[in-house]
Structures are given as C-alpha cells and as structure tokens.
C-alpha cells in the first residue's frame, strides 16, 4: 500500500536521488518490496522504520553493497547501477555507517583520504592530503585537526570525521545511518546544524533514524518503511509523531507511557570510591553511588564516559584500582565474577551477541548458563538435558520469547527476542541487584514496551536496578533517580521529578551546574 510520494518543492528540477520499485529478496525474506524514495537537491529526507523494516537493505542498494532484484536508481535524472561501493562513491554518494567506519590507529587525515589517496611519484602525498583536509575543515567550520589519531577522539568528533570523508570525496548525496545514537543532545544539535548547512549548499541528506523527534526536528520529507514496504511518504510538516509511530509499527502505540514511582527500601547496592585506571587514564574516578531495593537508578551520559567501566567493575569483569562494592552489607570487592553473581548480582550487558549470549549455541544452553551448577539442572554431578529443556521452556513462556524452541540456535531469534531471552535468564536469578545496560538497543518498539514493563515489575518486586542507557528518554521514563556521568565521575544527580532534558543534556556535555 504505497502512498503517493511527496512532490519536491521544485518539480522542474530532477530529484538528486530517486529509487523506484526497489525489490530485494534474501532467501525467503522479502527485505524490500517495491520501495520508492526520492529526494531533491538541498533536501533532508528522513528514512524511518523499525529494525528489520528494510532501511539498511535499501541504503545498501543505493550504496552498491547489495544488488537489487528489481527496480531502478537514478541520480539527477540519470539512471545508474552500482556494482560496488566504489562505483557509488564515484557517482557522488557517501555513507556514514552506524558505529562508524573509521580506523582508530590512523590519523584524521589518513582516514579522510583512505581509498582516494593523493599521490606524488607513486607514493602517498601526505602534504597535499593534509592541505586538502585542512581546507575542508575550515570551509565547513569543523572542530578537527588533521594529525590527531582517530582512536583518541571523542565520539561526537569522530562523527565529523565521517562527514569530512564524504565531503572529501565530493559526495552530493549523504546517507547517515542512525548518526545520533552515540551523541549528546548538544552534539546532536551541532550535527543537525552541519547537516542543514550542507543541505543549504545543495547537498542532499538521507537520514536513517528511528527517533521520532529527530525526524520532526530536522527533516523536510519523510519516508517510513515497515516489513519492506513504504507505509508513509510525506512532507514532515504534514505528519506528527503519532502518525509516524503508527506507520512504523502498524498499530497505535502509547509513546508516553508513565510508570508509577518505586518504593525504595533498604540499600541493596553501594559503590564507594570506585576507581579504575588504564594506561595513565582514569576511566572511573572515585565513584560512589547506592541503589536501594525497589528503585531504579538511571545512569545518563554520552557513551565512553565510564558507564561501561562502572558496570563491569561492579560485575567483577574489570579489576578496580581502589574502592569497594557492597551488596547489602557484604563487601564483594575481592570476589570474582562467579562469586559476585552468587552474592546477588544479575547483569544484562550491552553487547548481546558477544557478551550476553553465544549466538551460535542453542537457546537452551544460553539460558542454562549460571544455573548449571545447581539442581535441578545438575544432579549427582551430572547435567540433565531434560531439565535444560524444561528450564528454557519456563523462561520462553514466562517472558514471551518468540523462538522455534529450546533447541533453536540463539542467532535465529530476532534482536528483541534475544534480548527478552537474556532478560529472562537474568531476572530468573531473582538476584537482589540487577545491572542493565542499553536494554532496548536494536529492539523493536513492541519489545521495548515489554522489556520496560518487566524491569518495572522487577523493581516493584523489591529488587534494586542500576540502569545504563544512551537513550535519555528511556532513563527519564524508568528511573526513580538519575545520575549523570562525565569523564568517569558523577557530575549531576536528579530526582525523577526534577529531571529536565536540557539540564541533563548540559551535564552530559560536562557543563558545570
């Protein structure tokens, strides 16, 4: 049910980019089903959709990484076909991928010229490279130095390196895939200012995102995909958040669900003066906090400001240089991961595929981890396969995990169901303290609601929850208290009622309050 396309402002001019009737199948999956999308020069066009809706496939088609089964691509009215990214780049398309495509060990300048290096007598011409890069930095007023090593740069700055790469290649069509996932509100504003500026100079920007407020904030037109089809295509001014959400999910979604506050009891987790250093850098600086039973404490902050280290140090995965961690009255600072878990810590990590689960292993085995050294899974020294299955079935049913069965490999589940399985396994421990990182990253909206409901229920059952999330809205929705981390320290603390997006945003950027 393709709705009519929004006409570009100047219909006499050919669209800068036009995709028509794109079809792409992967085995049995129809990833793109006759998708149309067109954007005029100087337009910022948002492409929305949930995970698996076909956004990434569509952009891969445009960028020459995937060949469409049907459909045409044209740039400025000229039909094109791209057999590889190199050809798409040559035609003026540039893409910033989610999670970046940068080389940490190389300098800004080397990253920018990578793949399009200026040479002199057969060798790299670093001087010409640096001059070209410097010129672009100045023209677009970016805050970059060509000789800095990319690995040393903050995330927001790396984003600018990515954009610089596209400009260096004279890209006219810029595709940005979820560019704000790792940015502070201020960095996001800064990025949007740069994008508007580029659009003003005639570039076309395709912004792939799942954040409704970004679409309304920056885009001229919007296209929404669901299950590989276009469900909405309109000028942004003609839509609103509710319409967009409905187009994305196919049903009405309660976007602004409000949960009742928790009823905090005894202190369940306390962290005292925790410090972690690595190669001269202080990652966690004399950190103290406490979480009481029956409350959720949210940690806000830009990725890379010590949140990972805080949680890892509490869980025992990272050695700390000073400080103590207590569960109830018990000091667990000297214990290993296993003993800490036994002392009452459950943990849902950020990285599902590598840390939280083994994608290649069976669901039953994934769910058995942590339960395999006690009855009923273990009896008389031997593991019982039947109990493995029953244990998995209990979690699958209780947490509504959609899976073919306990023997299915974890990787065959969707992201949301993998996350629900991990959540189920960790909640099933009934540990007094739960550590949660990015519980809904890469999860579809329906699963987000389920996961949030489970976390609230777990809190209301009298457990302490420490929540780390890059989604400020998630923290604001769930947390009873909010702590903001910046450069390894807590720089601000808010109660549920006194929290304000702008103030928190400033604290995340390190502004003194």
């Amino acid at each position, binding site marked *: 049910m393709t709705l009519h396309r929004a006409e570009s402002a100047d219909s006499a001019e050919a669209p800068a980019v036009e995709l028509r009737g794109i079809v792409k199948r*992967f*085995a049995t999956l129809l990833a793109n089903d006759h998708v149309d999308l067109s954007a005029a020069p100087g337009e910022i066009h948002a492409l929305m959709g949930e995970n698996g809706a076909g956004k990434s496939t569509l952009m891969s088609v445009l960028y020459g990484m995937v060949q469409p089964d049907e459909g045409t691509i044209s740039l400025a009215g000229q039909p094109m076909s791209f057999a590889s990214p190199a050809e798409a780049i040559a035609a003026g398309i540039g893409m910033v991928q989610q999670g970046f495509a940068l080389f940490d060990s190389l300098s800004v300048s080397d990253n920018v010229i990578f793949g399009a290096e200026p040479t002199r007598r057969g060798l790299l011409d670093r001087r010409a490279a640096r001059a070209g890069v410097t010129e672009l930095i100045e023209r677009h007023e970016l805050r970059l130095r060509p000789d800095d090593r990319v690995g040393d740069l903050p995330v927001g700055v790396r984003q600018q390196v990515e954009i610089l790469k596209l400009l260096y290649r004279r890209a006219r069509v810029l595709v940005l895939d979820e560019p704000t996932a790792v940015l502070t509100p201020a960095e996001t504003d800064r990025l949007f200012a740069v994008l508007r500026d580029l659009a003003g100079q005639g570039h076309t920007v395709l912004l792939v995102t799942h954040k409704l407020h970004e679409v309304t904030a920056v885009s001229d037109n919007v296209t929404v995909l669901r299950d590989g089809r276009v469900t909405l295509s309109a000028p942004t001014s003609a839509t609103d958040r509710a319409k967009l959400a409905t187009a994305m999910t196919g049903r009405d979604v309660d976007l602004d669900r409000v949960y009742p506050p928790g009823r905090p009891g005894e202190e369940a987790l306390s962290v005292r003066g925790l410090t972690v250093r690595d190669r001269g850098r202080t990652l966690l600086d004399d950190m103290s906090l406490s979480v009481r039973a029956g409350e959720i404490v949210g940690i806000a902050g830009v990725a890379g400001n010590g949140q990972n280290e805080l949680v890892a140090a509490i*869980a*025992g*995965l990272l050695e700390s240089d000073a400080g103590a961690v207590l569960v109830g009255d018990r000091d667990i600072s000297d214990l*290993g*991961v*296993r*003993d*800490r*878990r036994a002392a009452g810590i459950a*943990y849902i*990590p950020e*990285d599902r595929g*590598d*840390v*939280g*689960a*083994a994608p*290649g*292993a069976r669901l039953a*085995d994934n769910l*058995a*981890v*942590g339960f*395999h*050294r006690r009855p009923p899974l*273990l009896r008389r*020294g*031997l*593991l019982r396969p039947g109990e493995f299955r029953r244990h998995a079935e209990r979690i699958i049913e209780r947490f509504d995990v959609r899976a073919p069965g306990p023997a299915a490999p974890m990787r065959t589940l969707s992201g949301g169901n993998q996350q629900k399985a991990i959540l189920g396994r960790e909640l099933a421990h009934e540990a007094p303290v739960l550590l949660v990182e990015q519980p809904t990253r890469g999860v579809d909206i329906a699963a987000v609601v389920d996961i949030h409901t489970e976390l609230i229920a777990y809190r209301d059952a009298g457990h302490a929850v420490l929540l780390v999330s890059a989604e400020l809205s998630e923290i604001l929705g769930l947390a009873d208290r909010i702590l903001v981390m910046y450069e390894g320290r807590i720089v601000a603390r808010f109660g549920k009622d006194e929290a304000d997006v702008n103030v928190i945003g400033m604290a995340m950027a390190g502004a003194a309050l």
Partner: protein
Amino acid sequence: MNNLRAVSFTVLAALLLGGLLLGATGADPLTAYWSIVEGAFGPDGIPDTLAYAVPVVGMATALAIPLRAGLVNLGGEGQLVLGAISAIAVGLQVPGPLGIVAALAAGVLAGGAYAAAAALCETRLGVPLLVTTLLLSYPAMSLAAYLVRFPMRDPGSSLPQSGQLPPDVRLPVLAGSGVTVGLFLIAAAAVAFAVVDARTPAGFEARVTGWGPRFAEYAGIERPRLTLRLLFCSGGLAGLVGAVVVLGFPYRFIDGALITPQYTWIGLLAALLAFASPLGTVIAALFFAALTSGGFAMERATQVPRELTAVLQAVLILFLAATTGVLRKRRRTV
C-alpha cells in the same frame, strides 16, 4: 543432512582429484583405491589400521579437549615425545607390572605438566597459548633426541634409540595382532572426554568458553583456571599416547619415530574438522588412520609411493576445510 551431503560431495571430489593424480603416475586408480580399502579394512589390514589409529585417535582427542574451549594446543609433538621418553625412563627403572603403571603415569604427568607450563605462560605472562605450546614443543623434542643419543642410549646399537624395556614392563598384546591393550586406554580416554563434555558442569563450561570467551567471562567462568586444567588434560593424554606407543613394539624410544608419522598434526586436523566434538573427532581420526594404513598397502600393491596417500589425505582435508568454511559462511549470512 545438508552438511552430510556437502561433506560426501567433498570426499568424492577429493577422490576424483586423487584418481587423476594416481592416473598421472601411471597407476590404475581403481586398483589403487581398492588396495587402500583392502589394506585398511581387510582381514590383514585391520590390525595395522588399529595400531595406527591408537596414536592418531589419542592425539586427536588430546588436542580436541582444549579446542572445545577454543584453545589451540600446537605443542602436541613435544608433549607426546616427552611422555614417551619419561615412560621409558621410568619403565627401565621400575620392574614388573608396577613398572607399567608407573611408566604410564610418568607419561601422563610429563606431558600434562609440560602443557600446563605452556598454559601458565599464557595466563601469567600473557604470551599467547598458540605460541607457547608451539615453541615449547621444539626443546622437548631436542631434549629427547639428546637423551637417546647420550645418557639413555642403547649401548648395543648405533641408532639413536633407548634401551629396550624388559618383557614384564610391556603392555600385553591382544591375541593375534600387534595391538596392545593401550587401545582400551585410549578408547577409555575418548569415552571419558565425551561424557565429561556432554554431562558435567566442567565440560559445559569448556563449551561455553568455546562459543564465546567474553560470554564465558561474563558468566563467571574463570578462564585461567579452565585453560590450565584443559591443557593439563590435553598434554596428559598426549603423554599417555607417547607412553602407550613406547610400551608396545619395539618397546623402546626411537628418535623421530613419534614425529615422522605426523600423528600430532593429523590428530589436530581431525579435531579441527570435527569442531572438537568428541565423537566426530574419533570418527575423523579413524578415517585418517584407515587412509594411512591403506596407503602402505597401496604402495605394496601398485608401487605408488605411500607418500601419495599423505597427499591425498591433505587434499581431502583442504576440500573439507573449504566446505566447512562455506557452510559456516552460509549459516552466518542467513
């Protein structure tokens, strides 16, 4: 089922390529292949196959043990040789049935301790296990080569070999074959590996580590301890294989006799190709053993040098490795 079809196809393709190779050397491929089958499984062949299978299955299982947790032990040769030379050293000193037990135990301890040392080098000093096991292997082989040339040399022989074990310190031979009861020891080890792997927490934790080291760490599995234990078991079994071999005919340590047949590398490949699954490893190792003992028969029947079976074997392995690669790739993209 899909996998089985792919693997059968691979084996066929390799056989075809081997047939071409055989044809190129002037031999009749069908005769050659038949002589391999007869040599491996015929009434005269089975004892040979079993005799060769004992060390290959033993080494394959030994190397599969750490591989289950994703740890590659490249030092099997050193552990094997060290186990063998220790068993001889003890067997020549301790008389009677006690000598057999002591010699086997010495083999297990020597191989196990040596592999454990490599594990400690990784967990304490941070040198990758792959490198420590490999590098430690060569000094062990050099040491054994030195020992059988000088302090432990058989005075009655000009060859680099140790003295012969007295008749009461030899493993009993199974009736009508050259195979010793060592066969049962190795079989027992393979069964034990299968049971521990499938049904005990320790085996489960090794598998979890193999699925993902970071997942294992997150789940509270202590990698250093696991590494140390797995390597001790691995080296211990390799040492046992060495001991079993030298406690059988010709009842002495001959320099190079454990290295030249490539037991270790063939065993490692069997384990790698079977993804270290206990049963799969044994099957793959038996298959390679049959191919090798068949190769000797083929040499006798067709004058084609038996090294050609080593070539066939390697070609087959390359094809299998490529197939498993494709299978893995396909699984990942779906």
